[in-house]
């Protein structure tokens, strides 16, 4: 009772200062346990990883080698800077094109030419630089980055489209809505290692694979699935080499798992987003005579775009972090075709105990994720429609 009296009666500055000081102490004390854990196991490791990457570190710390581990990845600094320049030019071209679109159309022809030149330059820089990096650098690691890119391009849009469609359907007047939602979400909550082990058996050796029996119902010949390291385009009979030959069927099998396990998450998020779209907007459009597909195209998709943005960002970062199911589903017979960056780094560390090499590769992966986040934030933020 005494304190309450003083609080009401004395609004002097000293009481405020005392309260502010108390709050400062309480705030620090309350956050301290979390700060200690998150600092030592979340933030400090970034700095320490970089420190380790500067050494020839195999289990125990060895000689200081500066940026040699990074040079071993890229092969040649000029090649590396060419690639960086190429990416920077692409980003510049995209920003310019958006600026031009927003401004007057008077200079459009002129800016169009500039844009083309920029893109061509970007392509030339990027491709020549990348070619030299593959030639001189750590080919296995660089191709693991390409595999990660395949994995991201193959899974993220697929997950989002399937997730949006299912959520939209579930949002209609449907019997058993709750049950459906529960079932779709199941693959997301269950342990990745357990379900990936099941996928190992589903996509087993051709003779023992239930997946082959299923595609057999549609008259498709048995496939080697997780065992197949030939790129998908070559498998389909196209004579394509390099990047556009696409991922191996083994990696695609892993993507199937990725989509299977992640769609439910998107469904749940999209569903709650759909619930936030004001009913009046639909009603008004219906009165104006809009069809179902028009409603979806001109109301649902724009209103969901902040969520689509959020999900694509989260999933993109997720694909670069993805580890457990890839580690479980990969096979030696698929060679490097199924090794994504995080798995490759783990092997360098766990199997080959090359800590310095592994940390330098992890830092590169981290910088890529950071860059992607920044770029995607910028690009998507402009396109997002905030209802």
């Amino acid at each position, binding site marked *: 009772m*005494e*304190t*309450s009296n003083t*609080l009401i009666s004395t609004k002097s500055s000293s009481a405020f200062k005392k309260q502010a000081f108390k*709050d*400062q102490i*309480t*705030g*620090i004390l*309350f*956050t301290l346990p*979390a700060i*200690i*854990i*998150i600092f*030592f*196991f*979340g*933030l400090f490791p970034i700095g*320490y*990883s970089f420190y380790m990457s500067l050494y020839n570190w195999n289990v125990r710390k060895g000689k200081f080698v500066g940026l040699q581990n990074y040079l071993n990845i890229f092969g040649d600094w000029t090649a590396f800077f060419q690639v960086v320049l190429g990416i920077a030019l692409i980003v510049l071209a995209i920003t310019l094109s958006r600026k031009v679109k927003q401004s007057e159309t008077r200079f459009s022809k002129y800016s169009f030419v500039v844009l083309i030149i920029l893109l061509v330059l970007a392509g030339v820089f990027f491709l020549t630089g990348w070619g030299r990096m593959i030639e001189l650098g750590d080919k296995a690691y660089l191709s693991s980055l390409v595999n990660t890119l395949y994995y991201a391009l193959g899974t993220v849009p697929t997950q989002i489209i399937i997730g949006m469609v299912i959520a939209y*359907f579930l949002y*209609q007047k449907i019997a058993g809505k709750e049950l*459906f*939602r529960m079932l779709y979400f*199941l693959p997301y*909550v*269950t*342990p*990745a*290692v*357990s*379900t990936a*082990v*099941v996928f190992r*058996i589903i996509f087993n050796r051709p003779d*023992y694979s*239930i997946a082959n029996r299923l595609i057999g119902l549609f008259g498709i010949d048995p496939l080697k699935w997780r065992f197949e390291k030939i790129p998908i385009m070559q498998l389909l009979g196209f004579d394509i080499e390099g990047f556009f030959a696409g991922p191996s069927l083994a990696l695609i099998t892993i993507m199937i798992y990725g989509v*299977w396990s992640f769609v*439910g*998450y998107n469904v*749940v998020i999209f569903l*709650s987003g759909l619930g936030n779209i004001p009913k009046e907007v639909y009603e008004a459009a219906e009165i104006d005579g809009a069809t*179902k597909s028009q409603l979806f195209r001109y109301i649902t998709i724009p209103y969901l775009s902040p*969520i689509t943005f959020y*999900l694509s960002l989260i999933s993109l*970062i997720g694909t670069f*972090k993805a*580890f457990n199911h890839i*580690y*479980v589903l990969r096979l030696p017979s698929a060679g490097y075709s199924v090794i994504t*960056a*995080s798995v490759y*780094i783990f092997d360098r560390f*766990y199997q080959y105990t090359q800590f310095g090499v592994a*940390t330098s*590769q*992890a*830092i590169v992966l*981290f910088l890529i994720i950071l860059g992607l986040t920044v770029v995607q934030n910028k690009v998507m933020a402009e396109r997002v429609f905030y209802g």
Partner: protein
Amino acid sequence: MDNAIPLKTSTSGLRKTNPTLAIIGKVLIYVVLIVGAIIALFPFFWMVSTSLMTLGETLQLRLLPAVPIWTNYAEAIERAKFDKYLVNSLIVTLGTMAGLLITSILAAYAFARIKFKGSNLIFMLFLATMMIPESVTLIPNYLMIRGDILPIPGGSWMNTYWALTIPFIANAFSIFLLKQFFQQVPNELWDAARMDGADHLRFLVQIVLPISKAPIMTVLLFGFTGSWNAFSWPLIVTSNDKWRTVMIGLWNFVGEAGTETNLLMAGAVITLIPILLLYLFTQKQFTQGIATTGLKG
């Protein structure tokens, strides 16, 4: 209202109001949803079904066993020591959840309701850790646990419960989730409590926590699944059976069981049952938790 429908359709052609089209649309929606559900469920069905087959039946790719062989489970448990690993996983998971609860409730409350210098900066740094891939943190954390970076009590935490729990007893996600909720607690409640002489800790324990059951439940659920499903970390900080968790046990069993897929599937079912039970009983909180955090992220 019903009388208005024919009028509308006659003026603007086939529209959603056409009853046959509406029925076809509905049927199509159900077909898509059911096919989707079958795809989502098939691996679970296949896992359980195979786990009850004889070895011969698994090779014939039968969909269902002629007679369910329940002893497969006993054999899998015996061969892969799942009983021991289940106990380990349970201890690790419960320990992690307890720690996670304390650290995140306190920190979330501080960020949401206490004005103190540096709170914004610390919170931003916390959020930044959500973006960092495990590849970057794994190796330094491994050295940390071995006591190579700093002296830690006991010298090294390799093959201990400490290694399996301590790094996970705080995370940015849980703090963020609870902070969102604590912010919505009306200020009047705090003013009233302060009048009665309550400090922050008492207000938190007596007023805020009782009305925050739902978000706390969500934190616990995610804590449980995160800890139970953990794989790469337990793989590197445990090197003998005594400390291994179920996921590592299952992974080792993949090599050991070889072509005996019925036993392997029985093992997979065992590792999955706790999560499945948890999900079946709390799926509302699960999905709601995901939805609210997802939307505000």
